[in-house]
């Protein structure tokens, strides 16, 4: 059961943390890492709505991220659109695309859905590589302008940090509202028992597609932000590997937890940086993490620690569920 005040306090604490962190963290490199934590948080959040709450797997979300990035990039770099307008167009296009594709795709379940989303993601990736006239091919697209409001341009690490995290906090707030509402309940119902959800009148088919579209649109916004922050995009960032990374973030955070996705995103963004020296080991680590997490801590880290603690207590304490 939700205590609304607790939720508001948690959010404010997060916002405060985000606001004040740069006072402690000055170095450009670290700020840059935090910018990426922000972008990845939005992505993990978007995927979590679909995967954690509605229970629908997508192995192709990097594709939506990439579409957002490329559409924004192409519109601004090649056609000199206003970046904010481009972002709006990009998000709308991707949302509509996902909505259209969502109907046939979400009729599928389990492995079939996983493969279909995988296939979709790879098709998008191939298009990025092959449509050289528009996307610049494997070498990427450069010359993407920074975002700006009037004369104020977001062209430094600290400015980008606040820009990205403003978007992230808004996304988090909206998502929190959504999951604590009747829609959020309906999503979790679909996940727990789709047949029972339908019987009490939840239009599972439509809702799944709507969340899929929302998730895609949000990922596209993250993509636009990425493009304008990096001023350069290349297909390599939007392939199957990244889709898997996103799924890993959601899983190690906590399926169906907004803050969990943040945790997952943060961990999986910071960890590779720490392991810079062991760069090639990262996919092994992801693989191991996925396997171990799914086998032993299916609730994810945010839930797993309390679970593990409770388990240890009953093992070494005075008995089951002892409060002593």
């Amino acid at each position, binding site marked *: 059961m939700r205590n609304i005040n607790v939720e508001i306090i948690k959010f404010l604490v997060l916002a405060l943390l985000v606001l004040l962190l740069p006072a402690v963290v000055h170095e450009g490199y670290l700020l840059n890492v935090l910018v990426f934590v922000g972008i990845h948080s939005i992505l993990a959040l978007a995927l979590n709505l679909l995967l954690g709450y509605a229970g629908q797997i997508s192995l192709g979300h990097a594709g939506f991220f990439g579409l957002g990035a490329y559409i924004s990039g192409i519109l601004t770099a090649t056609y000199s659109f206003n970046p904010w307008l481009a972002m709006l167009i990009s998000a709308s296009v991707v949302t509509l695309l996902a909505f259209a594709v969502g109907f046939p795709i979400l009729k599928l379940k389990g492995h079939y859905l996983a*493969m279909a989303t995988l296939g979709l993601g790879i098709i998008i990736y191939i298009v990025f590589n092959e449509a050289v006239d528009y996307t610049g091919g494997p070498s990427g697209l450069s010359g993407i302008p920074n975002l700006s409001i009037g004369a104020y341009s977001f062209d430094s690490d600290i400015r980008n940090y606040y820009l990205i995290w403003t978007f992230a906090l808004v996304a988090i707030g909206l998502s929190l509202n959504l999951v604590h509402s009747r829609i959020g309940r309906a999503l979790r119902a679909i996940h727990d028992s789709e047949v029972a959800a339908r019987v009490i009148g939840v239009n599972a088919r439509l809702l799944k597609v709507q969340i899929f579209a929302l998730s895609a649109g949000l990922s596209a916004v993250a993509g636009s932000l990425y493009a304008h922050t990096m001023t350069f995009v290349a297909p390599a960032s939007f392939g199957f590997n990244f889709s898997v990374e996103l799924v890993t973030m959601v899983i190690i955070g906590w399926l169906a937890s907004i803050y969990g996705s943040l945790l997952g995103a943060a961990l999986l963004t910071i960890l590779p940086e720490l392991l810079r020296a062991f760069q090639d080991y990262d996919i092994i680590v992801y693989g191991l993490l996925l396997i171990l997490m799914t086998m032993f801590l299916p609730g994810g880290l945010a839930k797993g620690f309390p679970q593990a603690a409770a388990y240890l207590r009953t093992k070494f304490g005075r008995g089951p569920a002892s409060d002593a």
Partner: protein
Amino acid sequence: MDLSDQIAQYLVSGLSTGAIYALIGIGFAIIYNSTEIINFAQGELVMLGGMFALFFLNFLHLPLPVAVILAVASTTAVGVLFERLTIRPLKSATPLSLIIITIGGSILIRGIAMLVWGKDTHAIPSFSGTEPILIGTATILPQHLWIFALTVLAIAMNKLFFNYTITGKAMRACAVNKRAAGLVGIDVRKMVLFSFAISASLGSLAGIIVAPLTMTSYDVGIMLGLKGFCAAIIGGLSAGVGTVLGGLLLGVLESLGAGLISSGYKDAIAFIILLLILFIRPQGLFGKAQTERV
């Protein structure tokens, strides 16, 4: 070369890649039929076949037939290990968990392969030289013949095994009804193990026989695995003729598409076909429609 000659050439190469897809696809189908799991790691087992063969041939300088057999055996061992460590302990995992575990397994195997063998592509010598053979107006490489021959052999042995041996029939029984099979004394868990073993053998064989043509590296598994899966889906996840036809169809369509339309988008063809099949006829072109019982 005029158009019909070109098409003949595309057909030949398409059929041979199709045979590879068929082998991989059958591997998917076998595991699916006995466990209802889609083993995402299948593609990596294909890759391991090629890589192990490379190791035994180039590093240990073993003769070709020995190297092939050892490579298949090693990959089968990896497949069995994977099943033992990750699938076996999970008796009642949700489909989502199983998908994620096999994905985790696939990237783990790929990661280890990358560390051991590096990121370079490697070549394995063709089994019997590279002198092209002329059949009509199409040239065919000896390796293509090997691919056809070994694929036919593998599928024939597969059919014999499933239809005429006790173990094979036991596995088919598990595929139809696991609980009933258990009740009549079939060791279901052992059958699951066998299914992983057979899939690994077929997959690694596929990886070995195609390696001389397409080179091998640590990341060939992804595409091959996905296309093999596509073949299996076209065939309705049947461990027999349907998947073989699916693989051949896919190989030919891909080859024709690459040759006649655009080679850059070649890989996209397989996935577009996959999506179309999943959208329109998920039970496959050669499978039967099923009503789900609640």
